[in-house]
C-alpha cells in the first residue's frame, strides 16, 4: 500500500498486538468478542479499553466457540467484527469459521500462533497453524489467510483483512505469531483517510433482496427479512437441493479462487536474476531478508518471495518463475506445511524444493537459512557447530 509522506509523523514504539488492534479500529471494527489466550490477549485488553469510548462493543465471552459465534451474530447485525486467539482457541473456533464461510459472513479472526496443544509452549513462537487456517474447518469452504512480517505490517494487514472480508464476504484469518505479537517496533500509523477502506456493498433496494446471490449485503433489521443457515441453501437462505447446493458452493469458492491475483499479496526481491529462491512468510521472512543480503554479498544469486497471502495460494507466481530459478527453499516454524503448497505449485518442473523447519519455539536465524542455501547449492560446506534443523 502506498505510504503518504506529507507531514513528518512521530513514530510510536508499539507491540504487534497493539498494531493489530489499532489496525482493526482504523478499519472500522466496532465489535470484538474473545476469550483470553497468550500470546493474543493484549489485543482483547486493548479492545476492551478502546471500543467503549466510541460505543463499539467489547465482550469477553465464556469460550472461543462463543466468541466466534457472537462475532458472526454481530456481523449479521451490521458490524465489522473480529476476534483474536491462539492455536487451541483457534481449534475451538473451527465450526464457527466454517459456518461463517458458508454463510458468507464478513469477519476477521486473528491467530497469534504458539507451539502445541493446551498450554503447549504458550510463550514460544511457531507457524504451525498454516494448514489449520486453510483447511481447519469441515468441507470445502472459502477463506482468505493473511500474514505479516513486522509491526507496521501487522497494522496494514489487519486493515487489509477487514477490507478483503468486506469486499468478498468471507472470514479472513490473519496469522501472527508470538514474537510478532509481542515485539515492539517504531511505527508511524496512518491518519484517518490515508488508507482505502472497503465497506459491504448494499443492494439498491431491501425489497426482494437475496442475501446469498452475490456480494451485496443487508444486516438484520434493515427491512429484508431473510434467513441465514449453515445448511446448503438457495439465494434466499432456504434449504437447497442437490443441484442448487452444488452451484452455490462453487459460487462461493469462486469468489476467492477466481480473484486470486487480486487477493494474493506478496513482496519479491531479485526475482529477475535469482537462481535460488527463498519462499517465506510471516516473521520468518525477516531472517530470510537478512540471509539474502548476506548471500548476495557472497555472490550467490538468491531471491526472495515473501507471501503476505497464504490462501488462496498464488500458484500464478510460481507458474511465472523464469528458467533461471533452479532451487527453492521454504523456511517455516513447523515441520513442513506451506512447503506442500509450493511443491504442488511447481510440480512437473525441474526444480528442487527444500524445506527448513524449526520447532523448538525459537525463530529461524539468517545463519540457518544461509547454511541451508549453501547445502542446497553446494556452494559452501556448512560450518561446524551450527545447528541445522
Amino acid at each position: 500500500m502506498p505510504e503518504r509522506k506529507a507531514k513528518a509523523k512521530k513514530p510510536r514504539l508499539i507491540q504487534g498486538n497493539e498494531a493489530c488492534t489499532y489496525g482493526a479500529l482504523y478499519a472500522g471494527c466496532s465489535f470484538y468478542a474473545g476469550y483470553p489466550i497468550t500470546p493474543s490477549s493484549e489485543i482483547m485488553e486493548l479492545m476492551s479499553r478502546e471500543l467503549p469510548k466510541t460505543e463499539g462493543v467489547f465482550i469477553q465471552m465464556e469460550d472461543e466457540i462463543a466468541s466466534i459465534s457472537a462475532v458472526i451474530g454481530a456481523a449479521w447485525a451490521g458490524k465489522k467484527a473480529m476476534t483474536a486467539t491462539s492455536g487451541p482457541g483457534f481449534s475451538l473456533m473451527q465450526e464457527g469459521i466454517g459456518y461463517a464461510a458458508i454463510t458468507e459472513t464478513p469477519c476477521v479472526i486473528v491467530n497469534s500462533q504458539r507451539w502445541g496443544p493446551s498450554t503447549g509452549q504458550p510463550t514460544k513462537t511457531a507457524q504451525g497453524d498454516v494448514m489449520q487456517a486453510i483447511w481447519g474447518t469441515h468441507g470445502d469452504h472459502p477463506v482468505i489467510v493473511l500474514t505479516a512480517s513486522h509491526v507496521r505490517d501487522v497494522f496494514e494487514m489487519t486493515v487489509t483483512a477487514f477490507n478483503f472480508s468486506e469486499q468478498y464476504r468471507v472470514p479472513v484469518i490473519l496469522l501472527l505469531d508470538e514474537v510478532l505479537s509481542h515485539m515492539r517496533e517504531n511505527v508511524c500509523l496512518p491518519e484517518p483517510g490515508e488508507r482505502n477502506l472497503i465497506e459491504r456493498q448494499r443492494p439498491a433496494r431491501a425489497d426482494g433482496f437475496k442475501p446469498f446471490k452475490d456480494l451485496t449485503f443487508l444486516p438484520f433489521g434493515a427491512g429484508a427479512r431473510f434467513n441465514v443457515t449453515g445448511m446448503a441453501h438457495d439465494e434466499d437462505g432456504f434449504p437447497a437441493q442437490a443441484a442448487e447446493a452444488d452451484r452455490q458452493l462453487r459460487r462461493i469458492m469462486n469468489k476467492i479462487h477466481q480473484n486470486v491475483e487480486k487477493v494474493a499479496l506478496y513482496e519479491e526481491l531479485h526475482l529477475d536474476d535469482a537462481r535460488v529462491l527463498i519462499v517465506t512468510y510471516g516473521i520468518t521472512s525477516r531472517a530470510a531478508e537478512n540471509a539474502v543480503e548476506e548471500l548476495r554479498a557472497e555472490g550467490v544469486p538468491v531471491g526472495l518471495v515473501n507471501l503476505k497471502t497464504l490462501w488462496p495460494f498464488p500458484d500464478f507466481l510460481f507458474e511465472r518463475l523464469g528458467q533461471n530459478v533452479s532451487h527453492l527453499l521454504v523456511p517455516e516454524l513447523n515441520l513442513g506445511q506451506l512447503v506442500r503448497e509450493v511443491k504442488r505449485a511447481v510440480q512437473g518442473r525441474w526444480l528442487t524444493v527444500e524445506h527448513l523447519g524449526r520447532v523448538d519455539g525459537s525463530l529461524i536465524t539468517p545463519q540457518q537459512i544461509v547454511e541451508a542455501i549453501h547445502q542446497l547449492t553446494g556452494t559452501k560446506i556448512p560450518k561446524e557447530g551450527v545447528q541445522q534443523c
Partner: protein
Amino acid sequence: MLREQYSEYLRSEELPSVWCPGCGNGIIVKALVNAIAALSLRRDDVVLVGGIGCSGRTPFILDFNTMHTTHGRALAFATGIKLARPELKVIVAMGDGDASAIGGNHFIHACRRNIDLAAIIFNNAIYGQTGGQLAPTTPQGKRSTTSLLGTIEPNFDLCKLALGAGAGFVARTTVFDFHELIETLTRALTHKGFSVVEALTPCPTYFGRMNDLREPYEMLHYLKDQTIPQALEDVPDEAAQMKRLPTGIFKDEQRMEYTELYSQLCKAAKGAAVSSSE
C-alpha cells in the same frame, strides 16, 4: 387469533414444516406468534435465532429476521446480535439438548449476564433430530435409543439451572396448556433481561415410541400428568418434584440488563477519555 392473522407471520412457501405429525413444536410456534401479535412487535424488529435440532428449524417458517446457527451456540450468536443492535427484539429457539448439553456453557453465561434475550427451550426430553438419543433432560429410568434399558443418569431441571445461574425471568409450561403458554411467552417477551421459558413438548416419534406412549394424545396426557402448577419451593421434596414437575412463572424480577449496563459503561469510558485528554 384468526387463521388469516397467522399467515402474516408465516413463510407459507416453507410450509408444511419438517416436523412429524403429532410433534408439539408447532404448538409452541403458534403460541409464540400469538404472543408477538399481542405485543404488536414489528416483524422487521424481531430476530429469531435457532439452534440445531428439530426445534432449531423454527426460524425457517417464521417471517422475521431469522438465523439457523450451530448446535448449542444459538445464545452466543444471539448475544452478538443483541449487543450490536440492542433495539432489536431477539428471540432464541433451542432444543433441550441444544441448550443444556452442548450449549450448557452458553446457557448459564447468558443467564448470568442477564442480557435481554428471550430463550425458549423446546423440551421434548430427548434428541429428536438425530433419532431419539438420551438428553440431559431425559427423566431417569426413561428409554432412548442410547439408553434402551432406561437411563441411569439423573436429569437436569432446566428452570433450577436458570435460576441458579441468575436469569431474570424463569418459567416452565407445557404445550398442553396452550393459553398458559401464550401468556408465559408474552410475559417473557416483555421482560427486560434474560428470560427462559421451558416449554415441555411431546416427541411422539422417539420419546413416545421408546416409552410406550405411541399416540400423540397419550403424550399430551403424559405431559399433563407429569406436571403440576405450583411454585418450585411448594413441592415438598426433590423426589416429589421429579414425579410431578412444577409449572408456572418462577421468577420475574427486574435487575439491570446487560446492554443497558454496557451503554452506561460506554458513557463512563467516553467521559474518562475526554477528561484524560483535557
